[in-house]
């Protein structure tokens, strides 16, 4: 079953991105915060020590419930948020200092495709202006007409043909699928090292999702752009990713080969997640694993395993210390006291 997954491993072995213990802590806001924690030292630990690396052309899927920090992590990777701890390296270069020193060079390396295609573009600008702006900023193309030519080519490549037809349209005149394609085109115009795709299909109608997923797959194959694919949809993530990381309250609890994770989830959270995910095939009737409650907000979690309060197989140990990494081989890592090598 996991055969197809391993066969589509990235060909190049060059590491393009590595995240080392990255953290994003927000001071808990005191105003109108519903949960009303009062002590001063509280932090919302949106991302709390995440490690992973990404090879050229590799697609890493990140799944987890809302609030698990996956979107924040995406933002950290493209420099929309500055990590409060840890380091991100692009091909060995430290990202934060790059962003401070030469922001444009940073922007060229890291791009993002957003969740909401209907909001990705200024409704007042037409596609031509939207696409040529990054070119202008980064000094690509010597004249307006040349830049227009570049845009045309990119659009055609992305299957938006004929390009002239689209160039002078405004965002509201395109469908969600088309807009998301334009969004990918724009991100790729700068030939980035890697791309974060943050829930790129969740706002799209089911019938047009395939189109975007396939476009991303094609991209990673053709231009070997590494992709971090963030989604709450497990089947979509599995469809597109080489590897999958499961996040819970700001931490990766399990990471490994996509099919391996889906078919042999080890962490209780992953198991609950996958078992509760309904299948489109009515023959696959499964009973979800019951866990308690819903993910709490990541305000000072711990000291034990963050998942322990909801876990169906907690032990005493889980409540006291955060579990160490357990290497299950083949790149399958899990952080759980209850899983033994």
């Amino acid at each position, binding site marked *: 079953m996991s055969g197809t997954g391993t066969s589509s491993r990235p060909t190049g072995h060059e590491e393009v991105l590595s995240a080392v213990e990255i953290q994003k802590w927000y001071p808990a806001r005191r105003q109108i915060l519903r949960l009303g924690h009062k002590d001063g030292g509280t932090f919302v630990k949106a991302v709390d020590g995440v490690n992973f690396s990404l090879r050229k052309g590799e697609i890493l899927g990140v799944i987890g419930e809302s609030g698990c920090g996956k979107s924040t992590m995406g933002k950290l990777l493209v420099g929309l948020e500055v990590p409060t701890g840890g380091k991100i390296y692009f091909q060995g270069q430290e990202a934060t200092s790059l962003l401070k020193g030469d*922001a444009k060079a940073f922007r060229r390396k890291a791009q993002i495709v957003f969740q909401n295609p209907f*909001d990705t573009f200024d409704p007042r600008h037409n596609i031509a202006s939207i696409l040529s702006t990054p070119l202008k900023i980064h000094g690509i193309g010597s004249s307006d007409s040349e830049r227009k030519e570049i845009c045309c080519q990119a659009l055609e490549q992305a299957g938006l043909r004929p390009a002239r037809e689209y160039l002078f349209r405004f965002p509201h005149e395109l469908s969600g699928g088309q807009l998301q394609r334009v969004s990918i085109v724009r991100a790729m115009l700068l030939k980035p090292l890697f791309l974060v795709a943050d829930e790129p299909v969740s706002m799209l109608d089911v019938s047009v999702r395939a189109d975007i997923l396939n476009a991303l797959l094609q991209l990673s194959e053709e231009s070997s752009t590494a992709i971090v694919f963030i989604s709450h949809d497990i089947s979509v993530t599995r469809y597109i990713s080489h590897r999958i990381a499961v996040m819970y309250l700001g931490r990766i609890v399990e990471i490994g080969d996509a099919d391996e994770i889906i078919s042999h989830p080890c962490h209780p959270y992953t198991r609950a997640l996958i078992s509760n995910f309904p299948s489109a095939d009515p023959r696959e009737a499964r009973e979800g694993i019951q866990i308690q409650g819903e993910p709490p907000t990541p305000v000072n979690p711990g000291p034990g395993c963050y998942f322990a309060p909801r876990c169906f197989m907690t032990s005493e140990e889980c409540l006291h210390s955060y579990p160490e990494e357990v290497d299950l081989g083949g790149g399958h890592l899990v952080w759980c006291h209850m899983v033994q090598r």
Partner: protein
Amino acid sequence: MDENAARARFTRSLKEFWMAYSSQKQAVAGLLILLLVVAVAFLAPYISPYDPNYLGDTLMEAPGRQHLLGTDGMGRDVFSMILHGTRVSLLVGVISALLSGMIGTLVGGISGFFGGTVDAVISEIIDIFLMLPTFFLILIIVAMFGSSMLNVMIVIGLTSWPGNARLMRAQALSLRERTFVIGAKVIGESRGSILFRYIIPNGIFPVIANTTMQVASAILTEAGLSFLGLGDPNVVSWGRLIYDGRAYLTSAWWISTFAGMAIVVTVMGFYLIGDGLNRVLNPKLRDERQ
């Protein structure tokens, strides 16, 4: 060719705007009033039967054939004065509202978009200005520093911007979180460029609507100042007509009455337009058509 296409789109979006706007009867009425008022302002010298400053010999003559709306206590033709007063009211209203709109947009845009300490400081300032008893402040300044029209316009403009700033700030705050603004950051646009290319153009609509309303309130403020005798004596303004006419209220009621009506109609025109714009331009209110 591209330009034509762009122009065509522009025309179309104007058309759409007009469709949405013109579907509101009240807004159209407001526009008609405005057109009338502007026409009167431009044509005042040509359609006025008299020079508004000409001191005729019949004082306090009742409205009649000779003087459509009568004469005032100095023998001036009230109708001509009201026609000429249109210019002053419009000028004071529009200039001060524009000033307030511009300051508000810039301050609010910077505050909301830049965020952080800048925002904290600016919004505190906005709050402070919002808490100022504005009319009193205007009154003090105009009373103490002199009541020329320029003073009045500047003071109204300088004291009425916080409302606009707050609107623009709210817009900027929400626009800042919008994907296309974040996207602009990711493709490497600078903060200043984002402010002027994305934040202000997309967030200015409520400010435009509000500025329209402010024209109305500036006209009312000017009238209020004039009523306290703090209008510019060198020009004919409606507020001053009411103020002057107040002395003749029982014997020549027409002076204050008609000038007041001119204010009501004009101010209403701006309010109607402002509301209409709000409904078209402010997405929150878009459903609430009347």
